[in-house]
């Protein structure tokens, strides 16, 4: 247990503060202190990608980040991308294109997709596969996830999917 530290950051668009052990994992802070459970723990060692969140626009693994590293950052979880009644186009595309099965990898996949589409608005299938390669899925075989990422890109570009 370390000396508690005051940590302030933006979380899903809102400024938040907490005082906590700076050595706690970011995934635990999100899930336990903020009740945000979209980031899932599939391995706890940075291999599966299910805990991915956007940190200043970059997909990062919250199981490998410490609470202290959140200070001053802008964090977005899958909950912050959109809600079922107002989903993000990536979330809509995942649902519409059948990219969601058990769904446990899905929030992390949408985060990886969000980072990709911000950097490359019109990726091809190979680029989408590369961007998703740090996120494991055991249900889908990835085909429909790639479909969804391309469709989300088209929707974000204002094209019909």
């Amino acid at each position: 247990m370390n000396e508690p530290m005051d940590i302030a950051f933006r979380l899903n668009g809102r400024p938040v503060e907490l005082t906590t052990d700076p050595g706690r994992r970011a995934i635990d802070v999100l899930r336990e202190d903020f009740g945000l459970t979209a980031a899932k723990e599939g391995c706890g060692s940075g291999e599966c990608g299910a805990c991915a969140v956007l940190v200043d626009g970059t997909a990062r693994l919250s199981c490998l980040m410490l609470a202290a590293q959140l200070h001053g950052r802008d964090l977005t979880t899958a909950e912050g991308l959109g809600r079922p009644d107002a989903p993000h186009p990536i979330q809509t595309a995942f649902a519409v294109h059948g990219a969601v099965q058990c769904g446990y990898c899905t929030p992390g996949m949408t985060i990886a997709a969000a980072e990709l589409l911000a950097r490359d608005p019109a990726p091809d299938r190979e680029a989408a596969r590369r961007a998703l390669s740090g996120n494991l899925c055991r249900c889908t075989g990835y085909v429909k996830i790639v479909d969804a990422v391309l469709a989300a890109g088209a929707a974000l570009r204002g094209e019909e999917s």
Partner: protein
Amino acid sequence: MDADRDKGASPGAPRVDALDKACGRQRYAADETPPGCLLAGVKRAGIPHGRIVRLDTAAARAVPGVVTVLTRADVPGTNRQGIVHKDQPVLCGQRVRHHGDPVALVVAENKDALAAGLAAVEVAFEALPAVFDPEEALSPNAPLVHPDREGGNLLAHGLMEKGDAESALAGCDVVVAGRFATPAQDHVSLEPPNGLARLAPSGRLTMVVSTQAPFRDRFEIAQALGLDPQRIRIRAPYLGGGFGGKDGATVQCLLALAALRLPGRWIKMAWSREETFLAGYKRHAAVMDIRLGARADGTLEAIACAMCFDAGPYAHLSGEIMELGMEHAGGPYRIPHVRIEGSCAYTNNPVGGAFRGFGVVQACFAVERAMDMLARRLGRAPESLRLQNALRPGETSAVGVAAEPGTDVAACLNAALAHPLWTGREAWKQAAPAFTRRGVGLVAVQNAMGYGRGLPDHATAKLELTRQGTFRLYNSVPDMGQGNAAAFVAMAAQALGQPEAAVACVQPDTAACPPAGSSSASRTVYTFGNALLRACRTMAEKLRNRAALALLCDTPDRLVLTPGGVSDPATGRFVPLSVLAGFLIRDDRICIDQFVMPVVENPPDTGREFKLGFPHRYFTYGACLCGVEADELTGRVRLVQCLLTVACGKVFTLAGVEQQLAGAAAQGAGLALFEELALEGGRIRAGDLSTYLIPTSLDLPDIDCLPLPDDEPSGPLGIKGMGEVGIHGPGPAVAQALFDAVGLDAASLPITPEVVLAALEELTP
């Protein structure tokens, strides 16, 4: 390819669970952490076989934040869990039989205290001789895994026969013989096993568990801990994957034990990935010896197959898995003379258990490889030998069961043969980039549906009209990702003439839902779906009759359910469901119905030792094409093309069928090329996701799925189960493709770069 895909991309309505999951709002068992919840963890053996000579928990109890430490002495009841055979201790008291065996249960206030408490449990063992090879385990001098057990290490043995295989083999023009092996496999559900439990002051035990079988779990817990199963309530929210790994107790009995000792407190147990590798169930490694004989014209005459399965130290469903493997060992072929012998051995390896494909993965690899050997010996193309011998409806299967009517395996093969991936294969192979070689393989597959004879494959479905005039269906079969909950909503909405938004779905809860069998065996949508549609029919009839009173209509049959109400086409009058619901007491607003899967009516006179689960009546058929590219310099193999054709009854939703087929093929491809636990002395050396490699998005092609026109009249809306059939093809199809590419004749999986390089070196001395 992409253009074709886009053209065909009419995705239809999304699954009702999809958007909540995509938005991160779906709550899995792992997401439930009630305030004040304690954490439980397990001290595990860490040796393959030994006697516990000292177990001291005093230091662990003294760790600040540790609430209690429990051992075998704290377990009431039999301390034995298991689905059919009860041989697996909840906590080991005297002996441990594999690295993951549990010796103490620590409950703590927080993670740090739990870790410190687990580290402070002092346990010493006297090492015992261990056995890691199932065939060695069956030799007379092998160390005994269960010393007092009659039968020694032979957990199960059986024989399925038709005709006279030995005589027929002696008379065959051609006989090939081979020994084939498939490895253990980990499910790698993204959500590891986990759950919560609390014992209420009333004495009722409430649990939330990531489980495929909540109804059966109650009996397993009750038996192991000496409880009344009716006092146990289990909820099974959506699972983050299962694939068989959550069919049978993982955390259940341990959590229940902790809850009994700490009444009133919520207790949570969540296995880490490493603990899941260590303690979770695995697909059985198997070795299969086959002799396959034919006439000179390619007509199959006889097969003799001996299968040996590695059960690990506890039975789980090993005997039943062996049995299903044996039933499939003759493949989807017409073979008059058959002798299939199965044995299943206790060892000190990880515990074998249910895994998508359930013994069939092993059998299919062996028989398909033997078919390739035979085709070569006869100078025949592998696909033409398969087509020539493909089992037709009405003919008897290898184990003597008449094949049901419907689209058959020949149709599945022919559909693959007509596909551009097959017709264009020579040009594709010739276009191999420099320093690579390409090859294409095509195999036939089949998978039985349901539990089989002797164990009723049942479900009971409950449907409620709410006071508001919407519907609520009570799903009794957990959705581990296969989409059955969404399928049930869509089926009920269609049957009741309502939009899907008007049908809510309660996930399995033994206190609210009537019982049903497990989420397994390609049975879920077939069996529960049939029960649900019966309940829907009763509900619709009831509502028409009640509406007839309100609409002053004396021929209720002419009334129709329309969104939000019941209409009379003759008069144009309409009564809202909310009004009808207001007139009905709750009992009258509920319809419950049930279904049991039909079984083979005249079972063959063989396999009599199998009281549960033999034979099966309904099979789903398919064919699988794989195109591979082998790197001549590194031996690395890429799966570049994959096509699955399938006959699985009518297609309820194309996306749903594609999801199951592609996902299963991905798991099969992992087994074919990557997944290896690297067991050494019973210890898993590849026990995390950086060493045990499952396919990533870069390892798989755009898998193509082609369901054929088919109909199963006994199925709900004509469907058959198809959650498993897609997993069987990639192993043997990749092997055949690698023979085509580099002349490698693989007899075991996974086919690693080392093996491929060795084959390449033989080609270019």
